[in-house]
């Protein structure tokens, strides 16, 4: 069953120097229990897509299109509805675990508030005091999820301040904090980038297992093809705010079709063989993006049509590639 359907999503930002057209025409579907990675270099718009799904775009953002979660459009929801959905159905693991929680409050405080008030858009002072009496009751739920994410000795950790925990441990705590509301969709923004390699593997394994056990749908945003390969069924490759390729993760990585994806895969350092190759040039200027395909100034296989017309998504087997190499050039 389709849980999330993103249709023709575009996000622009009003800036002092004009309108920055960052994300354009992103479209994909996510089924229940499915995992998807959005891969791209820094500034390719992947986090913007994620924040649009969370309904947390900055005030200067202008989104268009639609993001249907269980049939309801997040972009047209009121603030209150979005808060309610974030507190229950859609949840999020941040990028930098070390700064992701308020340093002045214990882990317990964060869990209790999330469990008691997680899906309320607003809370009155009296209501707050009244509910806080139930704090001890909900701690069990917190402990249950901390055990699930394999936080060692959760009873002690509960009374720690964030700064007393290591990055890996905090990430486990944060995953528990995200899952404690029993959500359907988990959005993970570079969940392992700030961690060392060993911890990274442990966290990814944990996420993979949780996904299977709880039937979660997960969207990972990452710049690391290795992470995408380890955790997701499908992958979307983004460049300059456009989707360039979408398909099964293994398939895309073993047999990349879009010249950008090919460049990315070639840039991975290998154990055997010489120096990895990079892609010449840098990301487009969003205030004045190149016409046609946004990758054409850097593309080794660019053709005339690439400079004029944007390539639509061409279906090749189970894959969608946004490149004229695979389409009818005269269309």
């Amino acid at each position, binding site marked *: 069953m389709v849980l999330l359907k993103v249709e023709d999503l575009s996000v622009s930002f009003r800036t002092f120097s004009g309108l920055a057209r960052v994300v354009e025409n992103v479209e994909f579907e996510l089924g229940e229990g499915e995992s998807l990675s959005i891969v791209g270099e820094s500034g390719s718009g992947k986090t913007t897509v994620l924040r649009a799904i969370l309904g947390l775009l900055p005030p200067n953002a202008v989104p268009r299109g639609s993001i249907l979660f269980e049939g309801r459009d997040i972009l047209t929801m009121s*603030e209150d509805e979005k*808060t309610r959905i974030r*507190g229950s159905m859609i949840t999020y693991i*941040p990028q930098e675990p070390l*700064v992701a929680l*308020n*340093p*002045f409050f214990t882990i317990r405080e964060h869990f209790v508030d999330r469990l008691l008030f997680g899906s309320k*858009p*607003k809370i009155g002072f009296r209501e707050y005091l009244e509910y806080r009496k139930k704090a001890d009751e909900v701690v069990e739920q917190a402990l249950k999820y901390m055990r699930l994410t394999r936080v060692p000795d959760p009873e002690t950790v509960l009374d720690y301040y964030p700064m007393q925990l290591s990055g890996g441990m905090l990430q486990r705590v944060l995953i528990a904090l995200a899952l404690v509301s029993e959500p359907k969709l988990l959005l993970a923004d570079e969940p392992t980038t700030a961690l060392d390699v060993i911890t990274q593997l442990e966290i990814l394994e944990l996420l993979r297992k949780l996904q299977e056990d709880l039937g979660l749908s997960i969207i990972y945003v990452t710049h690391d093809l290795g992470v995408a390969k380890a955790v997701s069924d499908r992958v979307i490759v983004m460049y300059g705010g456009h989707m360039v390729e979408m398909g099964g993760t293994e398939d895309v990585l073993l047999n990349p079709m879009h010249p950008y994806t090919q460049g990315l895969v070639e840039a991975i350092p290998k154990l055997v063989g010489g120096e990895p190759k990079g892609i010449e040039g840098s990301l487009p200027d969003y205030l004045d993006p190149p016409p046609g395909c946004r990758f054409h100034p850097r593309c080794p296989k660019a053709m005339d049509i690439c400079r004029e017309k944007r390539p639509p998504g061409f279906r090749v087997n189970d894959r969608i590639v946004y490149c004229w190499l695979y389409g009818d050039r005269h269309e």
Partner: protein
Amino acid sequence: MRFRDYAIRRALQIPFTLFFLSILIFYVTRVMPGDPVRLYLGLEATEKQVQMYRKLFGLDKPLYLQYIDYWKNLFLHGKLGLSLYTSRDVAKDIADYLPATLELVITAMIFSIIVGVVLGVVSAMYRNKWVDHLLRVAAIAGVSMPRFWVGILLQLAISYYLGILPISGRMSTNIMVHRITGFLLIDTLIQGNFHAFIDVSEHMILPVLALSFSPIAQIMRLVRASLLEEMEKPYTSTLRALGFPRNLVYYKYMLRNALVVAVTIIGLLFGFFIYGAFAIEMVFGWPGIGWYAVKVGLAKDFNAIVAVVMLIGLIYTVTNYIVDISYAYLDPRIRLKMEVK
């Protein structure tokens, strides 16, 4: 290092600071141009009289002996030396004048913290809306206007033209209050004299307002700025992304952090209030330590000057100490780091 050790070690610095301050101010008052004794005795005094009084004040001794005598006097007899201005012991003067200032300053401080924090929160919540713009313009006016001038404006508008509140003084002349603590608001309440309580409160309103205007603006701006800074922090977006109620994030998670920052300035403001009280007390004829300081300063009343400066030094160092300690206590990052080491 444990938190308690830190508190004690930091406390030990206070006597040192005050010791150096005492040497400095003692020296300065003794080398000031002008002869305090001649100023005190007037033009007609004979040389013999001058010598006699010089001896009486101990001014004929070498400086270091005068200094030692000063401390002996303080520790053995609890005396701060004779005042040239009031002709009695300075300690008595201070006991008389200090409560008036403390009453004014503490009231003004409580008032400006409450109003400043509330306005800062309002300003941050409605940032870049008209409420915020209005408050920020008012805040600039608040920090720019000298407080004695604000005091005069208030006297002119509210007391002179409108005639609502008394123009100066601490209470009306027809009212008698038996002094117990020296804090008239408390004394009148203890004695159940509500008529006097109202009268004293009325006299306080204008000086408190004049004194609080600029601190309110400063606290407001600081709270606003640190709240906006908290908004940009990653934890705010995490909490929002996890569906925490908006006002819970604002008033619990963000405000707590912002207030810890504000504690620093609030502590410093206390010293600032005392010094601000100098001008306000002159304008409003408030018989406090600031008023006293101006009078004794003009009279070159060296014993009183030393005492007033030391007193203000003491208040400054102690409030700074409290700020440091509470800052370390309120921020778990500092507190825990201490316990780890």
